[in-house]
């Protein structure tokens, strides 16, 4: 979802799921999306480790990144140079699998100027060993937004 080295500001809008009615699981997944964002901004690798499945596949800027790669980079990340603002998010339930789709925008800082860029993300969560785990995440740049 969100790239590294980011200070996160969450302003999520809620909207209904389409594959199945949203319930407690969907709320839990929304909370996990925010925990992920907060864990990343505070470089809390322990929190992220609990959210990410060991086989997580993450596509960041078109590159394939493993859980180990991701956590290593979070650990050595420089203080925040940009912000990510979460926007609308939907959760679609398929039994023990959930798909979250949403958008966020990234305000990158270069000198004194900001360079906003919007992304649309798709995350896949699976309920395993008694909890929801993130197993896949990817984002594509919004070229008309």
């Amino acid at each position: 979802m969100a790239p590294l080295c980011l200070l996160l500001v969450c302003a999520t809008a809620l909207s209904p799921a389409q594959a199945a009615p949203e319930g407690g699981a969907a709320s839990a997944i929304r909370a996990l999306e925010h925990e992920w964002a907060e864990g990343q901004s505070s470089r809390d690798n322990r929190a992220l480790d609990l959210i990410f499945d060991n086989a997580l596949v993450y596509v960041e800027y078109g590159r394939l990144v493993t859980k180990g790669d991701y956590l290593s980079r979070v650990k050595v990340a420089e203080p925040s140079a940009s912000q990510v603002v979460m926007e609308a998010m939907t959760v679609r339930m398929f039994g023990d699998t959930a798909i979250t789709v949403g958008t966020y925008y990234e305000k990158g800082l270069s000198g004194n100027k900001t360079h906003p860029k919007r992304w649309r993300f798709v995350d896949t969560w699976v309920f395993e060993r008694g909890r929801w785990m993130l197993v896949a995440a990817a984002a594509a740049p919004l070229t008309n937004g």
Partner: protein
Amino acid sequence: MRTLILAILLVFAGTLAGDAQREPDSGSKIAALENVWNQAAQAKDLKALSALLDDAFIYVDPDGKMLTKSEVLADVQASHGIQVSSEDMVVHFHGDTAIVTGIYRTRGVDHGKPFVRLDRFVDTWHYMNGGWKSIASLATPLGP
């Protein structure tokens, strides 16, 4: 002829999908479905394509645009001479869910000019009602 070939591929893929619960770790089954998907898109075989996608399927294209299943089918119907192939596919299973990563190589002609485009994709498949269905897909420009 292409329709016949696709029909055979679909039967083959359907047979594989039917075995999925017995052999849930077989990535070749999902890879076969991915290839059927590419063939169906190229041949504009909307029936075959529809059979692969769950009704709640969503797709995010490399421009960040979100499309529903019906919008994807309409897009395929309107496409011209697009050739798609998948490379470097890797499948991860999580119970009745499979995650596929790989690279799409798309060839076509845009305003008279041939192009080749590479995108990284992440597809999510879910085993339901005796078969595998794609429930989500995202493609994004290939990174450095």
